[in-house]
């Protein structure tokens, strides 16, 4: 049985509760309007960013914008799916039992981080020992302005000196770019070629002719079909003589231990 003082306390609490309900029902209109104003400003800012972004891409006539904005693009696969190495450059022994495809965007800071932090370890423990071959395929995202041209430039370098030249060029782009779309000026693409002992003017002509645009776009289409919607995205699986294999997806610049787990599972 509650005592008199408990009863009076409860009554006081109830009366306070009723009073607050009544006060809150008349919430200070200025606060509410202030918050609505902040939220509205924010939403207008998001809309403005979106419009500016779309205008920039439309005027830039970026061929990959449709891929980037395709709402029907397949979702990330949940299990192994058939992927192809196509005719893309290979690092390591071409007959290695395991294949790892990297879909790369040369202006993606996370691809750069993978190149800086994880690839050297994978190279020394798996690629240089003949266990794994790495195939680079292109996924230049539409919001990284120079990425498509950089992918084409790497293909042009490959034309001059095969996969060895490709990977030297690949490494040099990542060493020089500061990422995020325009981290490397396009006029530097021929300079890199000269610095690597390739023919810079021939590379520039190759780039201007857009000879490898279709090749890069094919990689983009394949990436989309495989459900790779970001970079870097990896597909890892047992090599196949036809160049197609069942690949398990690994997304992002993950630490070496993640790759080790994926590669050791297949071995």
């Amino acid at each position, binding site marked *: 049985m509650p005592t008199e003082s408990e009863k009076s306390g409860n009554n006081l609490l109830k009366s306070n509760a009723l009073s607050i309900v009544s006060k809150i029902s008349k919430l200070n209109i200025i606060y509410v309007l202030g918050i609505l104003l902040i939220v509205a400003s924010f939403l207008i800012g998001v809309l403005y960013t979106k419009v500016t972004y779309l205008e920039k891409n439309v005027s830039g006539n970026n061929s990959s914008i449709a891929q980037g904005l395709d709402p029907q693009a397949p979702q990330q696969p949940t299990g192994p799916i058939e992927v192809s190495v196509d005719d893309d450059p290979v690092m390591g022994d071409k007959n290695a039992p395991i294949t790892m495809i990297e879909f790369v965007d040369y202006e993606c800071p996370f691809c750069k981080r993978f190149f800086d932090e994880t690839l050297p370890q994978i190279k020394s423990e798996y690629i240089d020992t003949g266990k794994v071959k790495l195939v680079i395929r292109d996924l230049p995202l539409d919001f990284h302005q120079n990425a498509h041209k950089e992918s084409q430039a790497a293909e042009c370098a490959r034309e001059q000196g095969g996969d060895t030249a490709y990977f030297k060029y690949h490494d040099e782009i990542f060493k020089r770019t500061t990422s995020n779309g325009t981290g490397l000026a396009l006029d530097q693409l021929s300079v890199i070629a000269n610095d690597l002992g390739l023919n810079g003017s021939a590379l520039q002509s190759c780039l201007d002719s857009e000879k490898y645009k279709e090749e890069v776009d094919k990689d983009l289409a394949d990436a989309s079909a495989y459900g790779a919607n970001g970079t870097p995205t990896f597909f890892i699986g047992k090599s196949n003589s036809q160049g197609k294999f069942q690949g398990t997806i*690994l*997304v992002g610049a993950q630490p070496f231990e993640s790759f080790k787990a994926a590669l050791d599972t297949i071995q």
Partner: protein
Amino acid sequence: MSKVVILIAAINLLLHKPAYVTLTGILTIFLFTFYIVINSFSVFTSILAITYDPSILWKVFINQVEMVWEIAGPVNVLAVVLVSFLAGLNISLVILKTRTTKVFIGRTNVFGFFGIFGGAFGAACSACNTALIGLLGVSGGLAVFPLRGLEFSLLALVLIAFSLYFVSKSMKEMGVTK
């Protein structure tokens, strides 16, 4: 100034209740983890399809935080930590108030609710992707925003600040704090 005093009184009350201090700490850690994981969802789902090894998952998590720190900037990570702490504090105060008064007034918690979920987008993605296209209408996710997602954290902070004030105010009005 009185608004700050009301808020301090509520926080002071909470600080004298060890269970609620612990709850705030747990919620802060939980929300920080949630914010990081939700922004790197595809990264975690892909590694979980390969291994459940907790030491690898922990390394992936730390790697994600390091990447956001390095690429989006330390301010982004610190903003996410702050949003996580204030959201945790907010939830603890709402529970404390509700348990003390037995009255739950949903409307005062609306701002906190939006703040907590707004904070989920504050952590920059740790892969370049098109995942936020459906939500924001642009591919590239937070990379296309001038402050790389800090905008969401700031909005979340404002909403949580309002929520904290309203909860503290109702605690005072209901006699929970002096």
